[in-house]
């Protein structure tokens, strides 16, 4: 009898004391990027719950549960760097899930590299991140210049004689990168760039810029920044009575909070997205994109944004690399990441030697009757053009 009890107890203890892989993430839960940061955290959590529900990550013949330690970096790059350093040296965590925002990724990357940890991020699209020769940094976002290039491409496709374009951008390494992509493509397309100007990150009042735009009367306005900037730009364009035929804004339009904040005024605005629920991909953890979207709609009764999908994909990619490497050693997992070629709900994931994703295209959505609809590269619905006047 004693033996059986002993066996049972041993089995039980194995089940309960199952080993755990700890991941760390310093994300913006407050501050300027609070909206986007909370979505990234939600993506990581969805992946964690799903993995733990299906038995955890298989490494060799053992199964590991997933645990994620979160810190709030208050949307400040330096705090992000210090918190990731704290994760690595105090909490002894070597697998880092990236923060939101290119500035944060840019500040965290040297810390991860210095301590020989490993980071997979779905929050920073600036190409600057991949020019530093880092070995342990992997990003799932198509780089920022494509945001700007695709917006200009769509604008010229919709209206041949819309020639005057104004580009304003938040002075941040992501937004500047997007703006430079738009500028380059606008010149290639022979558009007349009437304004190309940045504004400081913490500015909450763009009246000087608005006076210029009102004077220049551009056909196309591209606003590159984060969620807060998009909302501010729309409010002030309306306040100054400026009605461009084509209005493209980054990050903002993709979030449901954008429509909640602006209601009527959000109609007809275009927004580049890393991913759209209308895409069709298979996924090793969630089955397929549709299943993920269905699960998300049931739980949060709204369409998933690209920030959530990207974060989930980051988890899935990290998991697959660990399973391929069959070990928890950073170097082995990194080599697995370098060689990975995986179709996920976010798209096909494959990295070049700098850790940049090269296998995933961008898409553009438009806000029509309060919902976002993919209009580029394929048309889920006809794009409305020109943009309806402010009410």
């Amino acid at each position: 009898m004693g033996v059986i009890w002993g066996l049972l107890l041993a089995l039980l203890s194995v089940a309960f004391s199952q080993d755990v892989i700890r991941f760390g993430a310093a994300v913006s839960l407050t501050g300027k990027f609070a909206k986007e940061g909370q979505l990234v955290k939600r993506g990581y959590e969805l992946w964690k719950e799903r993995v733990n529900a299906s038995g955890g990550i298989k490494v060799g013949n053992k199964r590991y549960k997933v645990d994620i330690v979160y810190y709030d970096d208050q949307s400040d790059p330096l705090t992000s760097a210090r918190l990731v350093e704290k994760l690595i040296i105090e909490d002894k965590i070597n697998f880092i899930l990236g923060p939101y925002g290119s500035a944060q990724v840019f500040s965290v990357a040297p810390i991860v590299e210095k301590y020989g940890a490993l980071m997979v991020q779905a929050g920073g699209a600036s190409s600057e991140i991949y020019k530093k020769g880092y070995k342990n940094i992997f990003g799932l976002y198509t780089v920022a210049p494509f945001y700007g290039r695709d917006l200009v491409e769509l604008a010229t496709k919709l209206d041949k004689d819309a020639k005057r374009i104004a580009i304003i951008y938040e002075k941040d390494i992501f937004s500047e990168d997007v703006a430079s992509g738009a500028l380059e493509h606008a010149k290639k397309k022979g558009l007349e760039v009437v304004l190309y100007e940045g504004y400081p990150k913490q500015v909450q009042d763009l009246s000087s810029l608005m006076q210029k735009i009102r004077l220049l009367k551009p056909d196309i306005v591209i606003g590159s920044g984060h969620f807060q900037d998009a909302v501010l730009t729309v409010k002030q364009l309306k306040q100054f009575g400026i009605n461009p035929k084509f209005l493209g804004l980054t990050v903002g339009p993709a979030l449901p909070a954008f429509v909640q904040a602006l209601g009527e005024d959000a109609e007809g605005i275009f927004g580049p997205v890393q991913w759209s629920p209308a895409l069709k991909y298979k996924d090793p953890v969630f089955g397929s994109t549709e299943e993920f979207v269905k699960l998300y709609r049931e739980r949060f009764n709204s369409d998933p944004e690209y920030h959530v999908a990207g974060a989930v994909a980051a988890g899935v990619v990290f998991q697959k690399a660990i399973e391929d490497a069959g070990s928890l050693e950073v170097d082995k997992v990194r080599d697995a990441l370098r060689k990975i070629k995986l179709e996920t709900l976010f798209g096909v994931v494959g990295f070049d030697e700098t850790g940049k994703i090269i296998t995933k295209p961008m898409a553009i959505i438009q806000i029509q009757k309060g919902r976002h609809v993919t209009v580029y590269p394929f048309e889920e619905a006809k794009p409305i053009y020109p943009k309806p006047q402010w009410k």
Partner: protein
Amino acid sequence: MEIIFQLLIDALLLAGYYALLSSGFSLMWGVSGIINLAYGSFVLVGAYLVYTFHLLEMSLFLAFPLTVALGLISGVVLQHLLINRLINYEPFTLLVLTFGFDMLLSNLLNFFFKADVRSLTLESLSGSLFVSHFIVPYNKLLVFLLSFLAILALQLYLKGTWTGKAIRAVSFDRVGAELCGINPGKIYTISTSLATALAMLSGGFYALLQGFTPFDSGGITLKAFFVCVVGGLGNVHGLLLGSLVLALSEVFSGFYLGEGWKVVISLVILVLFLLWKPQGVAGVKYA
């Protein structure tokens, strides 16, 4: 060419607000000689108060007077609990005290309201007034008028009432005032509480004008400091002139050089004035 007039209109509207914004700072500095580095945080406390009252469905006609009242009280508390303890030490220690207080206040605001960007957007104020092809946003116009009234009231108080005269006497010559039976301690308390009330009032207007976060206090204090140094202390012309110079430099450098250059240009002007004319353009008291 009419863009110049448009910019002048913007500058005028902004100057009106900046005059109110720096009136408290100038009063405190002029009367008790204290440079209150926590001034910006008091402005933000005012902004958050009005924002919260508005969230609680309270009408602004009640929210603003309540905020001003709270400002008066907190001024008295600030003077008695903190400032009076260090008043007869090196003025430098007060600088460190108010800086620590500023850090405490902004972090407390961050603790309660989180670091998100808040703003008080009233439907009625979100449009603009179009005069031929000049544009005057309603919120800026309203804030300009209310600030003007507030400064007028302040002037009447300082010139008209007995305590007002006593405050001005102390600001010119503390010893002289004391000899005519004025108790400077009491006057300091009144001027500090008046200053914090003005700060909180201008905080409420700040919320109407633009979004704000708990960490904007540094920029606000610097603007008030600019107005006092450039305009000079001790009279209302200095205040108005300093605000006009600040508004003009911000609006024009913002338009012609870019948003980022607003603060840089105003700081360059500030440092130049500190070097060559510390008592300011119209100041009577040595800054």
